[in-house]
């Protein structure tokens, strides 16, 4: 039995999400191969070869794979995947985009966002915004699975010495083209990997007021997130949204500021180790999940907090 892990990477570097996915593969058990599909992805492939527990790295390096267009990448993964018992990818926007297409090409169901491995064919996954946890069993010949990174620790990035093998197959469907991207530039830690996350909601009142949170976050070395309400209101960009359909985070410390705590938001952060809520409405549902609640005006409390940490 061998498991194919589809790497999450930027060509130049391997994303941490790949390490969580390798841990999930280790829990399933078997030989672990990592596929790096990209263009000029040599550095990412070398990083993948160093992950402890990985025995082989497959590299498909071609312009067709440069931007992870699913029309091109999915047929490649499906073709390679036929020889494996499991195909795994992180449940990032990229993994979610590509893997269901792979599953359908292989004519198997996909299991989305597993948070635990019970056995090689049985997994746990949240449904209904995390208000229920389903245990599901797959009888598919190839089990196609996305992995919620917060459910698994990162595998050691060093210590392995896998062989690197080039894949000859090039699939270019010619149906789609990359036009451009606007990526947020930030020196702060990436939300899903940050040890501390400070998030703001509708209570922030406007985008400018997020400067209070950025300033606190920089003092704490934290990432900054937001509720859907704050994103929909245009305070901050979409990639900051934490919740059922946004990013799922589970940091050591989550500080929710001016967030009421809709179930859709809680779905994205309630597995955090320690939750702090700062809200002037003492009835806000966020207090029901907070370890430490502070009923206060955030515009006074946040600067004071920044001064004391």
């Amino acid at each position: 039995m061998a498991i194919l892990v589809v790497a999450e990477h930027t060509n130049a570097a391997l994303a941490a999400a790949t390490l969580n996915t390798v841990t999930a593969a280790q829990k399933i058990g078997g030989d672990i191969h990592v596929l790096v599909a990209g263009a000029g992805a040599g550095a990412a492939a070398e990083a993948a070869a160093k992950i402890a527990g990985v025995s082989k790295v497959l590299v498909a390096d071609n312009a067709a794979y440069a931007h992870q267009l699913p029309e091109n990448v999915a047929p490649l993964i499906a073709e390679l995947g036929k020889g494996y018992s499991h195909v795994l990818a992180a449940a990032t926007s990229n993994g979610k985009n590509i893997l269901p297409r792979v599953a359908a090409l292989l004519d198997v169901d996909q299991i989305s966002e597993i948070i635990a491995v019970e056995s090689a064919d049985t997994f746990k996954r949240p449904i209904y915004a995390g208000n229920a946890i389903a245990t599901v069993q797959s009888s598919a010949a190839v089990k196609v699975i996305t992995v919620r990174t917060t459910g698994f620790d990162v595998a050691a990035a060093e210590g392995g010495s896998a062989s690197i093998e080039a894949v000859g197959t090039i699939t270019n469907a010619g149906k789609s083209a990359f036009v451009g991207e606007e990526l947020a530039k930030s020196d702060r830690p990436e939300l899903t990997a940050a040890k501390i996350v400070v998030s703001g909601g509708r209570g922030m009142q406007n985008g400018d007021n997020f400067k209070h949170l950025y300033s606190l976050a920089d003092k704490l070395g934290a990432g900054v997130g937001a509720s859907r309400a704050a994103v929909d209101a245009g305070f901050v960009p979409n990639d900051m949204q934490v919740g059922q359909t946004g990013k799922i985070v589970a940091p050591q410390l989550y500080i929710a500021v001016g967030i009421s705590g809709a179930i859709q938001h809680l779905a994205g952060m309630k597995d955090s180790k320690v939750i702090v809520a700062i809200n002037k409405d003492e009835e806000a549902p966020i207090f029901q999940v907070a370890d430490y609640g502070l009923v206060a005006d955030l515009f006074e409390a946040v600067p004071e907090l920044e001064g004391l940490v």
Partner: protein
Amino acid sequence: MKVLVPVKRVVDFNVKVRVKADNSGVDLANVKMALNPFCEIAVEEAVRLKEKGTATEVVVVTVGSSAAQEQLRTALALGADRAILVESADELNSLAVAKLLNAVVEKEQPQLVILGKQAIDSDNNQTGQMLGALTGYAQGTFASKVIVAGDKVNVTREIDGGLQTVALNLPAIVTTDLRLNEPRYASLPNIMKAKKKPLDVITPDALGVSTASTVKTLKVEAPAARQAGIKVKSVAELVEKLKNEAKVI
């Protein structure tokens, strides 16, 4: 240009569901049901394309029980022209749904298929991408902007680091994210008119599709509950607790 919009009947987003005592699933008896929020955004986008003159017909389709006719009528009240119910009492997995939708696509030959990116019950986020594989069409998932231009559609997608724009050959599949549009409310006259719009009912057998699945749910449990926390009186007390009790800063 014909636009096909697959939709799903789900529990209303405001409802906090409870797990059944026998762990066989969640209790949906007497719970308010609604059109999945992402599907509502998909209907709205299709209707706006029609209002702009880009689309000529908007067809909504759902796979579900006969009760799902209620959600099809909602979509018709929002401006869709006609509806198709693929009637199936079984709770189908995404692949089976995608296969049924693929058969509907073959029959209807739409130029654009717009779906919600995710249903808020199963939280799978699979059907649109699977339909892309089965039809062979290009896909623009998690869309925050859709512009049809000639024989292509430009889709701006919400991705982890920000936004990405791709150009797809038509016919194509688009799945909606939250920021694509703000769906309208159905007016009373439109709700009345929707009752007279055509709604066809067909069966999976008639489409020649097998809905067998390779995944079964063994049990459904409530998540581990968080222990209730405490309220602190001041920022100073909060910092003291975080440093000395929780030891996280």
